């Protein structure tokens, strides 16, 4: 024998699917037969459709714009700043700023090297011209 309570549960589940339009054809035929025989059930379905339509038209509610900031503040307050992992320099300073600082440092380094008397960028002074080959012979050497 079928338990009336379980039948109600089953019909309840089927009615929701029927209102949603997701009921399998065989089950839909069963519900429609029940609806045809029961005006009260028809009225119930109509009212369900009306309620569902109203609920679905509720406008979405956007979060407050500072929600993210508030969450982070709450986290930092509770954890005394230890909640998040230690951030690297690259996380704290934008890459563009790091690049500009690196270029400025490079320019300064080059300028220092250039102006230093011992700097490796300075060219050595030009060597004196080599004397001609005959001048290398002793001046007063007699021919044999």
């Amino acid at each position, binding site marked *: 024998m079928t338990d009336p309570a379980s039948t109600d549960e089953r019909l309840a589940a089927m009615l929701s699917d029927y209102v949603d339009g997701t009921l399998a054809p065989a089950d839909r035929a069963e519900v429609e037969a029940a609806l045809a025989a029961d005006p009260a059930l028809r009225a119930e379905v109509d009212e369900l459709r009306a*309620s569902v339509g109203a609920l679905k038209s509720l*406008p*979405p509610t956007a979060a407050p714009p500072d929600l993210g900031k508030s969450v982070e503040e709450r986290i930092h307050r509770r954890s005394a700043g230890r909640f998040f992992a230690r951030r690297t320099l690259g*996380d704290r300073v934008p890459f563009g700023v790091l690049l500009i600082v690196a270029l400025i440092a490079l320019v300064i380094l080059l300028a220092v090297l250039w102006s230093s008397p011992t700097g490796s960028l300075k060219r050595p002074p030009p060597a004196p011209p080599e004397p001609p080959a005959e001048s290398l012979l002793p001046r007063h050497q007699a021919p044999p």
Partner: protein
Amino acid sequence: MTTRDRELVRRLRERDERAFRELVAEHRDRVYNLTYRMLGNRAEAEDVAQEVFISVFKTVDSFREEAKLSTWLYRVTVNHCKNRIKYLARRHDRSQDELDESAGAVAAQGPAGPLPRPDRAVEGAQMEKVLQEAINSLDEDHRAVVILREVEDLSIEEICEITGLPDGTVKSRLHRARLALRKKITRHVS
């Protein structure tokens, strides 16, 4: 779970602050809308939404990656909301019944006039107030199911995954919640 969500979860597990910001930016409206509809009060909704993100960040190590990240967020949000509803009920705090001023203030401006048909978009704050009051009258279990289905537009399968309930129980709760809401809403929408 998508590759992007997997990567986001990996970074969250490394306590990456930027990953946390991305998570909040991506899901804040979804989480807040659910907390607001569950609690019917902006201040409570914002407070619970913050707790949801903190909880997600703290417990991300226990997240099993076979579920979608959004599903897990919904689950955490629903659980937080249900706990808050119980807490407020225990405290007999009337504030949970106070509707948002933006909806209530308009309703208080004059007597209720003709309301829009239910098959059209809800056009006024009065109707929103009626609907939110009807939702607030449900217990937390029925409230969660009907909001996930009608407001968040999730499938029955997704609701089963979020709530951990079998298919038949979700459908049964949904139907009972709809019946209860119908009684409160019908006289306003007909």
